[in-house]
C-alpha cells in the first residue's frame, strides 16, 4: 500500500517524508524541552512549545517488538501475507517508536534489540513506505 499522497497529508507529517526522499531518517524534537514526540504534532505534547525541529538519526535502530501478520485484514495485503510489522526505537531519538516492515529476513532470525536499518534503496517512488532490514553481523 502507498503512503497517502503529499497533497492529502497533514503538513506536520511532510518533513518526515521529505527527509526520507533525501535518504535520511529524522524525527520531531522540541527546541524548548528537548523531547522527541511521535506522531508529528504542531505543539510539543510535553511543554506545548511551538518551536519544533527535525533531528536526524545517525545510526541504526533497535527492534523493540514485532509481529508476523498472517491474515489480510485489508484485502489489499492478500498477496503480501505473511509480513513482519516491527516497532523500532532509536538511541538518538528517545521516545520515538517507529512502525515499519522488516524485509529480507525470516521471522525466526528476529530477537529483541537486534540492529535494524532503513532500506532506502527498496523505495522506488515518493509514495513508497520506508521499510527496514536487519544489520548483518
Amino acid at each position, binding site marked *: 500500500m502507498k503512503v497517502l499522497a503529499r497533497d492529502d497529508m497533514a503538513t506536520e507529517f511532510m518533513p518526515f517524508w521529505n527527509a526520507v526522499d533525501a535518504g535520511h531518517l529524522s524525527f520531531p524534537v522540541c527546541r524548548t524541552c528537548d523531547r522527541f514526540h511521535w*506522531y508529528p504534532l504542531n505543539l510539543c505534547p510535553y511543554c506545548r512549545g511551538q518551536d519544533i525541529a527535525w533531528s536526524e538519526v545517525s545510526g541504526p535502530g533497535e527492534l523493540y517488538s514485532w509481529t508476523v501478520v498472517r491474515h489480510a485484514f485489508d484485502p489489499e*495485503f492478500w498477496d503480501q501475507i505473511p509480513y513482519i510489522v516491527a516497532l523500532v526505537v532509536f538511541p538518538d531519538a528517545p521516545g520515538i*517508536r517507529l*512502525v515499519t*516492515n522488516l524485509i529480507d529476513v525470516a521471522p525466526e532470525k528476529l530477537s529483541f534489540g537486534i540492529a535494524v536499518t532503513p532500506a532506502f534503496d527498496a523505495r522506488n517512488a515518493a509514495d513508497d513506505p520506508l521499510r527496514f532490514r536487519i544489520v548483518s553481523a
Partner: protein
Amino acid sequence: MKLDVAIVGVAETPPMRRSDKGVRGLVIDSVLAALDDAGIAPDEVDGIVTDSMIMPTTVPHDYVAAQLGINSRFDAAISMGGAGIVCAPLQAALAIQNGLADVVISYFGVDWGTRAAGPYGFHDVYPAKKVFEKPYGFNAQPAYFALWARRYMLEYGLTERQLGSVAVHQRRHALLNGGGQMTTPLSMEDYLSSKLISDPLRVPDCCQITDGAGAFVMTSGRRARDCRKRPVYAKGVGFGSVPITGDAVFTQNPELLVIPGAKAAAGDAFTMAGVGANDIDFAEIYDCFTISCLMQLEDMGLCEKGEAGAFFEAGEAGLGGKMPVNTHGGLLSYSYRLGIEHLVEAVRQLRGEAGAAQVVGAEMGLVSGLATPDFGVLVLGGENTR
C-alpha cells in the same frame, strides 16, 4: 459523590456473526426488551446516554427517540465504545439525582459482522494512520495488540500457555452460558495448535465479530424497588484517560505495557463505591484480546503486575476460583459488542439469573470498558448492597 441509581432492566439481541436486521433494528429490539425487563413503558423514558463516537453516527439518539416516542429531558454521550458504555451510569446518575431525568436508557449495537470493513473501518478517522501505519499493513487490532503481547512476554515472562488459559477458561464459561457465538469446546492443545493470526496472537486470542445490540434502563434507587426485577445498583463509576491520540496510543504511549486510564478509573470507581479490589466477587473485563484482558486485571489492581497470566493458569479466574472473569465467555467466546454484553451479564449475575454459569453468592461485580486511550470502570452491587 455517592451514587443512587439502579439498573432495572437489561436485554440483548442473540449474539450472531451476521444478522439481516441492521444495527438500528437490533438496537430498537434491545431497548424495547430492556424496558420490558424493567416493567417500564417507553413513554416513561426521559433520558438517553450512549458513547459519543460510534452510536451518534450509526444509531443516533433522535432516531431512537422518534422510533419509541421518547420525550427527552436529558441527553448525553461520553467517551467511545466500551469506555462509554460502562461510564453511562455516571451521566444517568448526574441527571437522575439532580432531578433532570427519571428514567434513562443506554444502548449499544454494531453490525461489524456484515459490514465490509468490520471493526477496522473506523480507524480511518486518525490522520497519522494512512501516513505512518497503513502502508506497512499495520491496520488492525490483532496486529496492535500483538506488538504489546510480544513485548509483554519479554518483560513479564508471560507464557503462551498462560495466554491460552484465558481463551480456554472463557470458552468453558461460554459453553455453560450456552447463548454465545462459540459453541464448541477449546482445550489447551486446541489452543496451541490453532492458527496464528498475528504472532504471538492466535485465532482464540482474538474476540468475536458480531452483529447485535444490548440496552439497559436506569432509574433512582427509590423507584427501582417498584420495578419488575431485583435492582442492581451502580456503586461506583470511574473514567480515566491519558493525553495521546487513539492511533498513537498503540505504539507511542511512554508506558506502552500499561493500559491507559485503567488505574485512575479503577481508583475512582472503588473510592466512589467505598470498596476495594478484594470485595469484587466477579469481573467482566473488556477482553478484546487475551493480552488486553490480562493487562487490565493488573492495571486496575485486581492482580499484581505480571501476575494475571498465572492467576488464569491456576484457575482462579474460572467459575469456582477466587474471582471469576468473563462469566459468559467474554468478547472472546460470547460476542463482541464492545462490552454491552459485559454489563448485561454482570446484572444477570447480581440478580442470580446466570444459570449454569452463576457465581454463587455474587454481591459485587466489576465491568471494565477499554477504548484506548480512554478507560471506564463500573462497580455494580446486588440488592443487599444499597
